[in-house]
């Protein structure tokens, strides 16, 4: 092969449509998202797991008692995403955070919609912002916004 020739290359796309059945617990959480509500599930020690799982991650017991939790909570940790990944629900740079909602003992991963990393602070309070059209998907949540801002409901 001549050194002057550039190597041949081809774009290869691996694509899967995937529709996943949710089961009862995750299904209920997704139904909640569609209805602009957030649910968790109680563990045997009384603590609340958000998002809910079918079995306790430590004891493996089946979990059955779902309860509603607050739409607001605290940022436990965060980072800045710029640029957003092509398949993520976001087009603009945003914070990615672990957020512990009031009423929950565990944190969930989602975006905090601010303009720059200087607006982010561990411990800041945020509240859910919902999409206009919701189908029962984690992206029904547009993200979370600073609690002092006007809530878009």
């Amino acid at each position, binding site marked *: 092969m001549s050194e002057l020739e550039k190597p041949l290359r081809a774009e290869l796309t691996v694509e899967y449509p995937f529709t996943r059945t949710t089961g009862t617990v*995750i299904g209920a959480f997704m139904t909640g998202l569609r209805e602009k509500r957030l649910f968790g599930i109680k563990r045997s020690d009384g603590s609340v797991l958000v*998002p809910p799982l079918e079995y306790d991650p430590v004891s493996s017991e089946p979990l059955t008692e779902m309860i509603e939790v607050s739409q607001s909570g605290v940022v436990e*940790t965060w980072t800045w995403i710029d640029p957003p*990944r092509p*398949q*993520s629900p976001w087009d603009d740079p945003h914070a990615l955070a*672990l957020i512990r909602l009031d009423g929950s003992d*565990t*944190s969930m991963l989602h975006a905090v919609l601010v303009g720059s990393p200087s607006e982010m602070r561990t411990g800041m309070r945020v509240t859910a912002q919902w999409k206009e059209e919701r189908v029962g998907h*984690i992206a029904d949540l547009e993200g979370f916004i600073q609690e002092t801002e006007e809530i878009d409901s």
Partner: protein
Amino acid sequence: MSKSNSFRDVAVVSVASHQTKILSEVNEVQLMADLISKCRNSAGVTQEEIGFTCSGSSDFLAGQAFSFVHTLDSVGAFPPICESHVEMDGAFALYEAWVKLQIGEVDTALVYSYGKPSAGSIIDVLATQLDPYYVSPLWPDCFSLAALQARLLLDKGLITLEKMAEISMRSQKNGSDNPNAVRSSKDVLFENLMNEPPIVDPLRASDISEIADGGCAVILAAGDKAKSFCERPAWIKGIDHRVDSHTLGVRDLTRSPSAFLAAEKAGRNTDRLDLAEIHGMTSAQELILEKEFDLNEETMVNLSGGSLASDTMMASGLIRISEVASRIISGQADRGLAHATSGPCLQQNLVCILEGE
């Protein structure tokens, strides 16, 4: 696992590895044909004599189903061989081979692993291993998740940006002696590292592992067979792996209990450690591991530069084992700890303790 007489003595007797930023002159098959031959030749064993072959690789990394079957061409798998594969780092393939040797069916094993992350988008590939309902549809990349972990450590005062820079500096300096290191520098300056802006807040470029293509091959042998292949085999005194919950929100990300437990079960505490090769994707993760493994000044950490110098998905863990083993075989060290990780934020961890006679 204690130093029990019921376990067969199994050792690493020969290793070969290669890492480079982008593998362009050869493909994975040609790379591994070369490494596997080197590894077998240096032990003086033919493929016919090898009892079991086990490899680790990821089809998602290659973008091809059953991609590892292509790589069997590099082993010379005819007449048919006894073979297995794990869709994981080669360190876990080594664990499977070790188990096979413990059962007593075979006395020798060939373990290899490789990855060519340059062909695809590894940070998107890794997002597909996360919770499919709650996390994966958000496509969080592995470095962002590691950044969440780093920030928690910083906020709680468990680490500092200075300590992270010290780890990066250690990696770059040590890596300058390693032909496999993609990022290394004898003269790296602490101030320069501290002045780097964060690229995945709070992680700076130097805090994040340097992605590389490459592969690794290792030969294991039991008892007297090991002694016939190698003057000073690196005996596996303990090997164990554990996994934490996959749910990020229930874990204390400032710790890795599975790493701690794996080290304990592998027998980390039975004697001092001359060296340790730990597999962390960031400087912050190396600090977590140093704590979980209780490493102090008497242990030289990541003489190879670690994965901060060169990180080949699927092979980095096996390469950590090979780095410890080769230094024991050559007589540079007597006892070392090798570690491999898998999953986000040090979720799953394997620890292997190796010792020379």
